[in-house]
Structure formats: structure tokens, C-alpha cells
């Protein structure tokens, strides 16, 4: 059984590499966007954690803010963790990319840019994936339909 590391346990580990605020949920930890690369790098390289596999990156539009969720698994220790970050500014949505840490983020970050409109700074090829260049808006945003109508 994959062990799910609780938010509290994870926050003890990453407290040292976080420069901004850190909020702890039951099974997740919310950090600020600027801390994402350092936290991810720490999670991947620390021997007792070794999150070498990025399962999924998801983005949710909660209207007041966007939430980006990283599901990571360690294939070595068979445990998993959920890391989150929030973006409050709807017009200036950007996050640092983690594609240098896990190549698996490549298409997933492009998909989020395409459908949710979150820019990943440092991604080498941030183009739309599923829709064509020039498509108006980002369809998974909750205000998309109003925009089109």
C-alpha cells in the first residue's frame, strides 16, 4: 500500500527550504508559488523522501484563486504526497516551472497553460497542446463561457 505522508509530517521536512508562508492541511501542504522549485528539488533529492515520480499536476479555478496541485510518488519508498500552491491574481498568473526537476511535467504544464491559462516560467516550450494557437481564452476557467458568449 502506498503510504500517504500527512501534511504535518511533510511540513516538518520542508520548513527549512520554504521562504514564504506554509499552510498545512490533513494530507497536503500549501506553499507560495516562488517556493515550488526549491521544495520540489528538496523532495526529489532528500534520501529519505526521494519523490522521483511526478504523478500528476492539476489546476483548479476556485474563482478567488487558482490552485495548482502536485501529486508526487516515490517509487523507491512507495509513499506519496500532495503539494499545493495558490495564485490570487487572475490577470498575472504565473508559476515557476518544474520541468527541470521532472521531465514528466513537460506536457502537463503545457496542458495547464492551454486549458487553465497558468504560465510556467522557465518551461522551454510553453505552447498550447490540445487547442490551436490563437484560441480565445482558456476553457477550464470558470468565467470562460461568459467570455465567449
Amino acid at each position, binding site marked *: 500500500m502506498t503510504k500517504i505522508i500527512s501534511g504535518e509530517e511533510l511540513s516538518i521536512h520542508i520548513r527549512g527550504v520554504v521562504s514564504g508562508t506554509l499552510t498545512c492541511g490533513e494530507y497536503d501542504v500549501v506553499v507560495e508559488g516562488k517556493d515550488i522549485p526549491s521544495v520540489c528539488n528538496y523532495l526529489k533529492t532528500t534520501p529519505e523522501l526521494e519523490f522521483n515520480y511526478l*504523478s500528476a499536476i*492539476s489546476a483548479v479555478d476556485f474563482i478567488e484563486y487558482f490552485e495548482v496541485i502536485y501529486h508526487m510518488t516515490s517509487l523507491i519508498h512507495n509513499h506519496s504526497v500532495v503539494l499545493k500552491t495558490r495564485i490570487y491574481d487572475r490577470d498575472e498568473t504565473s508559476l515557476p516551472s518544474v520541468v527541470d526537476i521532472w521531465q*514528466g511535467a513537460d506536457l502537463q504544464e503545457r496542458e495547464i497553460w492551454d486549458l487553465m491559462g497558468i504560465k510556467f516560467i522557465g518551461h522551454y516550450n510553453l505552447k498550447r497542446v490540445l*487547442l490551436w494557437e490563437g484560441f480565445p481564452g482558456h476553457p477550464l476557467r470558470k468565467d470562460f463561457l461568459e467570455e465567449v458568449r
Partner: protein
Amino acid sequence: MPLKTEPITVNIGPQHPSTHGVFRIRVTFDGEVIIDVDPVFGYLHRGSEKLAEERTYTQVITLTDRLDYVSSMTNNQAYVLACEKLADIKAPERGMYLRVIAAELQRIASHLVATGFLVNDLGALATPLMYCFREREKILDLFEMLCGARVTLTYMRVGGVFQDAPEDFWVFLKRFLEEMPFHIDEYEQLISENEIILMRTKGVGILSSSTAINGSVSGPVLRSTGYSWDLRKADPYEVYDRFDFDVVVGEQGDNYDRYKIRINEMRQSLRILNQCVEQIAPGPVRTNSPLLFRPPVGEAYAHVESPKGELGFYIVSDGGVAPYRFKIRSPSFINLTILRELVVGLKLADMIVAFGSIDVNMGEVDR
């Protein structure tokens, strides 16, 4: 004076028999050798994630059928598991066994499609494919008995399955389980030792396990590199912890290993199915959770080992009748992350085989 050469870009697809759907790749060649690829996605994009936000939880099951349309059962399974995790309900034993039976049959059907099309890509047009489809047809007949549909099944529900299997189903299933090992032997006889296939696949398109893990590759493609990671063993869902089966791994991660691993996984699926038939006991197949399902506010991520890899659903609920956010972690899409590493340095004909051996399904890539 050396001859001046310059790279040439060739467009393949979206309408091409080897692209398994509507996939387009722009390939740059230096002479005959590939130096760069640029996959173009989206020709089958239907906006499933957005559509789900306007539908009830039960209606969304029909959308999951249409993701990977050759393995609808595992799509259903991953989705209902995510819903059950969200609402903290558990299907009754018999329901779980029926789901495992359906999922393992679907795995065999999907691997048959993958094997058949791989040989198709190698130039053996249609005939070997029909050998594989002959057995797939029997599985579709079994599905028809279970739920009345053959491809878009919608068999599973939150809290169990739609209905119990009819009496006849068990007779036909047992007959299928008796026959199938001989059919797999037949494929092996036709393909595994075939000299042309060995020449075209052995040592071609090698993928290392470190590249695969770093690229979030999952399923048979990851296991073919020699890394043993199967969610049925690593994170058992339903009743998988009760079965005795092996995780099949490859040796060097070439095209041949990716073919061979699917053949061996079919044998393991048969082992699981035999144990299912022995262990299944009478009982209810579904909890009485309503069809207009309203989970509490929260979020859940559930994943299963689909025939293509780790299929995950991330669902966010606001307490309403429709999911607030419905995200699909599709294995076919993410397995294509390593396409460039896999095919750069190969020739065009080998690229077609390497792409076929990843076994992507465009319905799932574009969603």
C-alpha cells in the same frame, strides 16, 4: 569538398494508418535519421474535463468510456473509485470482484489490440490483427452479457456495478479462460520467434528506466525497462491484494520488450481471472447509494493500473450534483513525454514501430 546537406521536415498524419487515430508528428530528418520530432495533439479534443462540470456524477461515467475507447472498463473503474474515495463508501465484495473481472478482461482486450496493431505497423497488414481481434470479440461478447454494450460500457456505478452477471456469463467466462492460454501460445508462435519481427524490434527504440521514471512514464512501457512498478501490487485497490500474480518486467526496454510484456501480462490477467472465479461469493453487487450522487465537499485522487499505465482521476467536489473540477491523468498522454528521447536517432520505419509499441490511444491523449 564535402557534400552540403540540410535537414528536411516531414509531416506525418493526422490521417495515417500508423498513427492509431488522429495523431500528427512533424519529423525532422538528417538524411534518413530522425533528429527532431514535434508531436501535434488535439485533433480528437472533445473537452471532457469541461463537459463533466455540467453533468451529474453518474452521467460522467459515460464520458470516461470515451477516453480510452478500447479499455472502457478500467476508465469506469478509476472514476468510480475516485467518487467512492470522495464520499468514503465501499462497494460490496461481489461488486468489487465483478469489477476486477471486468477490468482484467479489458486488460486482455486492450493488450490484444496493442499487439495486433504493433504487428500491423511492422507491415503484416491486417491478418495478424484479425487473429487478435478474434479473441477480443469473445471478450466483447462477455461484456455484452454483463451490461448490454460492447465498447462504451458504462458498467460500473458509484458503490458497485450496474447489475449482477447472468448465469450464462460464468459458463462462457470459464470456456474463455480454458481456451485463451492456447491462443496466447498461438500468438507467441506467430510473433515472438518470427525472424523479421526480432530483427525489427530487438534493440530498437531503447528506453532506460531512469528516463522513463523522470518522464512520468507508467504501465507496460515503464515495466519494460526492467523497473517493477504495478499499482495493483504497489497500491492495491479493490481486492487485488487477495490474488497471487507476478509483475512482469522487461530486460532492456526495447520494442520487443514492450511487445513481450503485454503477452506476459495477458497470462497474469488470466491467473487473476481464474482466482476471481474461484473466490467470488454470492451477495449484493451494489450499495444503495442514489444515482443522483452528492458527495461532501472535498477532493480525491484515485488511480488504477489501466492497460496503458497509471490512469488517475482528480475530482474536486463543492457538494453539488456535478463535479466542480474533473481532471484526468491520462497515461497515454503522459507516456508521450519521452517520445523525443525514444525516436531521435531512429529511422522513419522504426519510429512507426516505436510509437506503436508505446500503445497510445488518441481518445485518451486528446480527451
